């Protein structure tokens, strides 16, 4: 199975995960500072910054793009409860 490496910059931990993993599945368990509210792509509490590797993330859904836009997110932001990693190297941090 293809793997990806996700680095949580705020705590200095890199996790090797199967492609298709959502950030929400790992960020809490590893103790990263990304926090969650509704966990279903509506509240934007889990908005995070993709420091590098956006090309290795899934495309945002219509719902995610709408919520990001409503919360004035930059193009580097994604929702950790929605975004999936597809492969390669990705670096994220809260915010």
């Amino acid at each position, binding site marked *: 199975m293809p793997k990806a490496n996700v680095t949580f910059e705020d705590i200095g931990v*890199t996790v090797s995960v199967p492609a298709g993993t959502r950030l929400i599945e790992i960020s809490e368990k590893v103790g*990263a*500072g990304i*926090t969650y509210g509704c966990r279903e792509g509506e509240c934007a509490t889990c908005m995070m910054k993709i420091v590098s590797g956006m090309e290795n993330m899934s495309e945002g859904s219509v719902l995610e793009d709408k919520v990001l836009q*409503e919360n004035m997110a930059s193009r580097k932001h994604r929702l950790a409860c929605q975004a999936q990693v597809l492969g390669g190297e990705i670096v994220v941090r809260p915010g």
Partner: protein
Amino acid sequence: MTDSPVAIAPGVHWIGALDPQLRIFDVILKTANGTTYNAYCVRGETGVAIIDTVKAEFADTFFEHLEQVARYDEITAIVLNHLEPDHTGALPELMRRAPNARLYISVKAQTMLKGLLKSEDLEYTPVNTGDTVDLGGRTLTFLNTPFLHWPDTQCTYLNEEAMLFSGDVFGCHFCDSRLFNDRVGDFRFSFEYYYQHIMRPFREHVRAGLDLIEPLELSLIAPAHGPILRDAPRSYVQRYRQLAAPLLHNEAADRAKTLLIFYISSYGNTARMALAVRDGAEEVEGVRASLYDLQGGEVAPFVDLIEEADCIVFGSPTINGDAVKPIWDLLSSLAVVNIKDKLGAAFGSYGWTGEAVAMVEDRLRGLKLRVPVRGVKAKLIPNEAELAQCWMLGHQLAEHLTGRNARRVIDMSELLNV
């Protein structure tokens, strides 16, 4: 007096409603004196603004008051400082009656407005700090003050009168038809109580909001609940500044991160683990670790301690498959303080099954704490190896607190049983 609108300046009226019988507000707040839902009408030479409305049950009173000071076709602006239903209950009907009015809400209020009116097809203007509305000889200027106490909250300043329509900030649940702070009964405890329950979890945002408000000239503060503050309005701003400061003086603040360990122990086993956690944390320079036995304390002072702490660790036995009640009592009392992004951890001894540690860790994550180090559980009497794990738990937490944690690479499978 308040059967009619009340002039607070030439062309500026209170048009809200009194709710003297209310005793519980929004489930969480008690009030011995009811409350008021304050709304205001500001008249300029070319336009009229309505600032906030009232709870839906009081809409008739609101419209009766409004109609005594303005015609609906004169209204050019509806300003919502906060979209909670106690301020927007009359909004749909007001929008229907005043079709010429433009709706002004904060940038963060847009999704709430859609949820409130159940429509995606709405006409409104999102505003931010410094944006203005011209009423002809009178200007409303907006101050974006998020999280005072919702994401959408803002204040509106009437430049020419130096009046601040502050929304819930500087408000309180206190109903007195004499309306002005120099005429109503003693409402000081209501003001303090309101701050402690509504604003306290957002004190960093309170400080940011005060940075915007303090430079303003202030002749009067008109909040959305409780007395209008026309006598010494700046004293209430100063009081908020005091209340938003750290509650406890931390003797070690400039040299140490604080790690608090709360434990409870039936036979001394979880207590022994707590000591080991503390010893591990104390080994790291720059960390002040403290132990508290929950059997000997009350919840409120511990909440104050937690508000100022950097890391909180809970030690609980497992009894009948659950963490024990004093732990849950403390963990269910933290909504009044900001604990987001603090570090958290759990440990404990158990007899049969040992669920408490994972349950507490899940609760800490749910409260938006970070749980970077896996907890430790020990069956009955902790042995040397388990006490060493506890020591390491404290030590690693302290390293995280001080930025000394080693960078590491792990496989996701290591997280699956966390």
